[in-house]
């Protein structure tokens, strides 16, 4: 039997039992669709994280208080053993360090007239917009002199703005209540899109004050994080060494601070995301195994039902190989059909999800899914096909 004939006859067999074929392939459909979807979410997450890190700039070094380890559970919220004087000293370490800014943050209730919103107050430096991709929608960012004089001024995130003032309200020039203190709004930030809603780094729900003023308002005296900028990305490790030496001189140990180089951190996070995606896809792939068992099962039923047909085919000249290939082709046809539908559904779902979070269907995951569904067909079809091919034509013809 030639290849074209094999395809034709197995297509016919699959079509003859449409409902059964569909139900049989459902397992493979679900398995492939979920693998495609999960991998696309994982890939989307990775490219999102990568982009966020890149917007941070590659010439920065982040200092966090305490020891942050990626293997030992979540980071503890510890009070820093260093203060804003240390931040100033680090900046003074000089080449290749060009800037060191400490920041503090804390969740607070923000109030304007009868409206209130629970957001985050961040104390940052006046030159913050210069480094991030923060843009002003109305008003201005606070100035260096306002920071030096610890003025009670604030720039509010877009979400905070709409919650307190509505879509069209005027915020600049108004006073809002932050943790019981009266603070003047000097600017509103542009809305930041494309993020994972509600995440800790969501600037939309932030209000930004001069770090000096925020410290006075919240009573926090120690920085929650320090950003050290260097001239070039290649300088980051040198800066890290200098910072480390400085802290050691101040009798701090490795348990008191963590230096994070974004590039390194990015690699760690991405490999971590890769593992998570892989593990989730692995779990989804269990459905593929179940789907394969379903196909094997229905193929056994089919062999039994069609014993007479097999007997006849053998009587008129079908060889062992002819029958083997026929049933194998049917099993592969079923699983590849399921795989293709699964790829379509998975891609569709991924596009749908793409309207909420970033997803990316990769060619690799499509090809892999297709390959795996072929493999599932072969594996689940082989035993029934062998049983069919082994049938004795006499017994098969007599079978009622």
């Amino acid at each position: 039997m030639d290849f074209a004939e094999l395809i034709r006859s197995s297509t016919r067999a699959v079509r003859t039992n449409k409902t059964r074929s569909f139900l049989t392939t459902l397992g493979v459909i679900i398995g492939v669709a979920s693998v495609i979807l999960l991998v696309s979410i994982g890939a989307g997450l990775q490219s999102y994280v990568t982009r966020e890190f890149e917007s941070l700039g590659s010439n920065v070094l982040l200092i966090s208080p305490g020891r942050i380890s990626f293997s030992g559970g979540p980071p503890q919220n510890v009070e820093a053993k260093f203060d804003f004087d240390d931040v100033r000293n680090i900046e003074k370490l000089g080449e290749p360090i060009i800037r060191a800014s400490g920041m503090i943050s804390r969740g607070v209730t923000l109030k304007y007239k009868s409206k209130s919103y629970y957001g985050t107050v961040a104390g940052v430096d006046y030159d913050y917009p210069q480094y991030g991709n923060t843009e002003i929608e109305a008003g201005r960012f606070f100035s260096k002199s306002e920071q030096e004089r610890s003025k009670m001024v604030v720039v509010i995130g877009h979400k905070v703005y709409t919650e307190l003032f509505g879509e069209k309200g005027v915020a600049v020039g108004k006073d809002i209540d932050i943790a019981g203190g009266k603070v003047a709004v000097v600017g509103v930030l542009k809305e930041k899109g494309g993020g994972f809603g509600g995440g800790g780094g969501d600037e939309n729900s932030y209000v930004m004050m001069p770090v000096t003023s925020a410290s006075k308002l919240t009573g926090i005296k120690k920085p929650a994080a320090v950003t050290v900028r260097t001239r070039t990305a290649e300088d980051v490790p040198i800066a890290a060494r200098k910072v480390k030496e400085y802290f050691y001189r101040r009798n701090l140990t490795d348990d008191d601070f963590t230096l994070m180089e974004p590039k390194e951190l990015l690699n760690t996070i991405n490999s971590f995301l890769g593992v998570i995606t892989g593990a989730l896809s692995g779990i989804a792939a269990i459905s593929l195994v179940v789907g394969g068992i379903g196909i094997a099962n229905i193929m056994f039923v089919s062999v039994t039902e069609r014993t007479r047909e097999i007997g006849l085919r053998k009587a008129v000249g079908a060889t062992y190989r002819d029958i083997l290939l026929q049933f194998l082709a049917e099993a592969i046809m079923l699983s590849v059909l399921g795989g293709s539908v699964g790829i379509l559904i998975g891609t569709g779902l991924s596009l749908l999800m793409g309207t909420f979070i970033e997803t990316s269907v990769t060619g690799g995951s499509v090809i892999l899914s297709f390959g795996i569904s072929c493999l599932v067909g072969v594996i689940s079809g082989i035993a029934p096909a062998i049983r069919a091919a082994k049938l004795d034509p006499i017994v098969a013809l007599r079978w009622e």
Partner: protein
Amino acid sequence: MIKKVPVIEFVGVSKEYGNPNEGGAVVEALSDVSFVVNKGEFVAITGPSGSGKSTLLHMIGLLDRPSNGKIYIDGNEVGDLNGDALANLRNQKIGFVFQQFNLLAKTSAMRNVELPLIYRGMGRRERWERSKTELEAVGLGDRLSNKPSQLSGGQQQRVAIARALVTSPSLLLADEPTGNLDTKSGIEIMKLFEDLHENGVTLILVTHNPEIADQADRQIVIKDGKIVRDTGKK
């Protein structure tokens, strides 16, 4: 007939079932059967049920191998051929017609008839032409794309006969071909067989029906695994 050309020849063929090594009793379904069927003959094999008729049918149809003795088809010994070799030989030499028709359901008459040619590896167009010719020959030229469920019993058996003949076999082997048909269709099918016989087709028909058997030129009667009568024996 001027010269006798043997199509199938049995020499001292016996068949035993059961494996004494596994403690089962050995049943001898055929014992020391010898006969020759020549080209163009129309032979009926008859006998009561359990006589070894079916076993003989399977041997003639190359579906089974003898325990002892030799079978020749077109002068070549079948011997110790394996399953696949037998399958190829069946494809070349034997056309089967069954009591139950054994057509593929939900499959057109044309596709049923071309089935043996597919296993022969013949190209699509040639398959199509030969199948069409064969269906026209059995009077179903206007039923090419009908499925078995859309055909009467007699028509289904005609499709089966077309399928058996499409390979131009050395031997047409029919097992109770009228057993599932009403009298009228049965008579028509027998008429078709006689026409085929007149056109030189070698025909072996297995039946328990004496009326059917009487229409053959020669009768082989089998009982308890032995040939008890062979009208063709000189």
